[in-house]
């Protein structure tokens, strides 16, 4: 592995710029952007490669001094917290193993429709990319058990999207519009004040 190639820099690049390139890439491939995403493992591998490349470059440059790359957190995305009844723990392990069709099958066979059922069904839908169905289920789970933090955080997670990477497709132009307006305003002020001899 050529660490410079991984970070898209050259051996002549300054430490600050290497750091900047590293941060940019780490922001892009951060596990938070791939929660419940079927490609999470690929993003994790890329993140590992970036961390290693950064460590290699910094170690090489600083001699033995250890470079402080961002600590890699283990993101499974989905943690097992509640054990619940037998079938639900089976569903949870099926989801964790990525076996969504089995999880769905188990859920459809379960006679009861309680808050946890809706939560788990919502998670299956979330993993499948069925976001509207996922939201419906999560909302149902939250209304049946409003005090449950796990359900609430799942709903928040779905609604937030991956704001960590800064990619908010529907906001982008609105934000630009706002900037544009500010720039226009600034120009007008400059013109006015300049003309007025302030």
């Amino acid at each position, binding site marked *: 592995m050529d660490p410079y190639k991984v970070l898209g820099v050259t051996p002549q690049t300054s430490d600050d710029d290497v750091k900047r390139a590293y941060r940019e890439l780490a922001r*892009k*491939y951060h596990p938070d*952007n*791939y929660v419940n*995403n*079927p*490609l999470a493992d*690929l*993003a994790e591998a*890329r993140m590992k490669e970036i961390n290693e490349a950064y460590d290699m470059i910094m170690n090489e440059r600083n001699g033995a001094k250890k470079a402080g790359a961002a600590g890699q957190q283990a993101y499974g995305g989905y943690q097992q917290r509640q054990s619940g009844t037998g079938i639900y723990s089976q569903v949870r392990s099926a989801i964790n193993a990525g076996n969504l069709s089995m999880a769905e099958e188990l859920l459809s066979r379960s006679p009861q429709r309680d808050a946890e059922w809706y939560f788990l069904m919502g998670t299956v*839908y979330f993993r*499948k*990319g*069925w*976001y*509207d*169905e996922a*939201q419906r289920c999560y909302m149902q789970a939250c209304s049946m058990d409003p005090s449950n933090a796990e359900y609430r955080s799942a709903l928040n997670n*779905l*609604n937030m*999207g*991956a704001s960590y*990477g800064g*990619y*908010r*497709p*529907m906001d*982008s*132009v609105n934000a630009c519009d706002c900037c544009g307006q500010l720039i226009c305003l600034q120009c007008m002020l400059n013109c006015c004040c300049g003309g007025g001899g302030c």
Partner: protein
Amino acid sequence: MFGFIRPVKPELRVREVDRFQAVYCGLCHEIKRRYGRMQTWFLSYDMTFLALVLGAVTPDDPGTETCRCDASPLRKKCVCRSSDALAYTADVSVLLVYHKTRDTIADETGVKRLAARALLRLMRPAYRRASAAQPALDETMRTCLDELSALEQARTPSLDRPADTFARLLAAAVPSCEANTARILRQMFYHTGRWLYLLDACADLAEDLASGAYNPIALRFGLTKPGLEPVKEQLEHTLERSLLDIHTACQLLTLYRDQGLLKNMIDLGLPLVTRQVLDGTYQSNGGHDQHGSL
């Protein structure tokens, strides 16, 4: 298809505009070479996007040549040379158009149905060749669209159930390539398909309500009047999630060329069209009516 996937021209570099044009024309020539002139009438921007993505993940660049065509008989245009990616996209295009027309016959009545019947008959020879070239894809398209019509007939009040059938159809359009690349492309195409289907349903809401045709948006939210205003936020949110998945998948791909153009289409073009459709300001010709222009 729908023509929803297009770049935002003012944000493109001049060479990216030329490149888009060259791939569009290259695909048109490829379709004409393989399937005859008639099939080129159905060329869409969506298929150009497919050709761009598949071309970008292939290490070797086929390059360009200049030639004339029906739309530009006097001036020679810069055209992308034939490649595996273009040939494959041509197959997908012919198959999709054929199955879409089949779908129209099932859904429509009267003159439209008759026209679709006639068209289907004319398209059959090209379809047979495309089906022989991509038998598995043809089969998947057929099953997915059959599943979709069953859901439509049952008037399923869900967004994701019908969208899933079309999304799987598009995900099946990933050619055989390196395992991880194929995985990423499948995820990208799945959500492109989901987004296309749902956005098309948004765009057709008024028409479907008037004719009583199946519309998942109307049934899911219990809409009886045209106008997406009451449910705009929810739709925006669910479509945004798919756009996010397309974006996160695409940044895992190793792209050998056209990074800027694809980034423009995914990060600017798709959100812009989404916003326009939800606002009701979308124009299918993009406000321009020149052939092959943006």
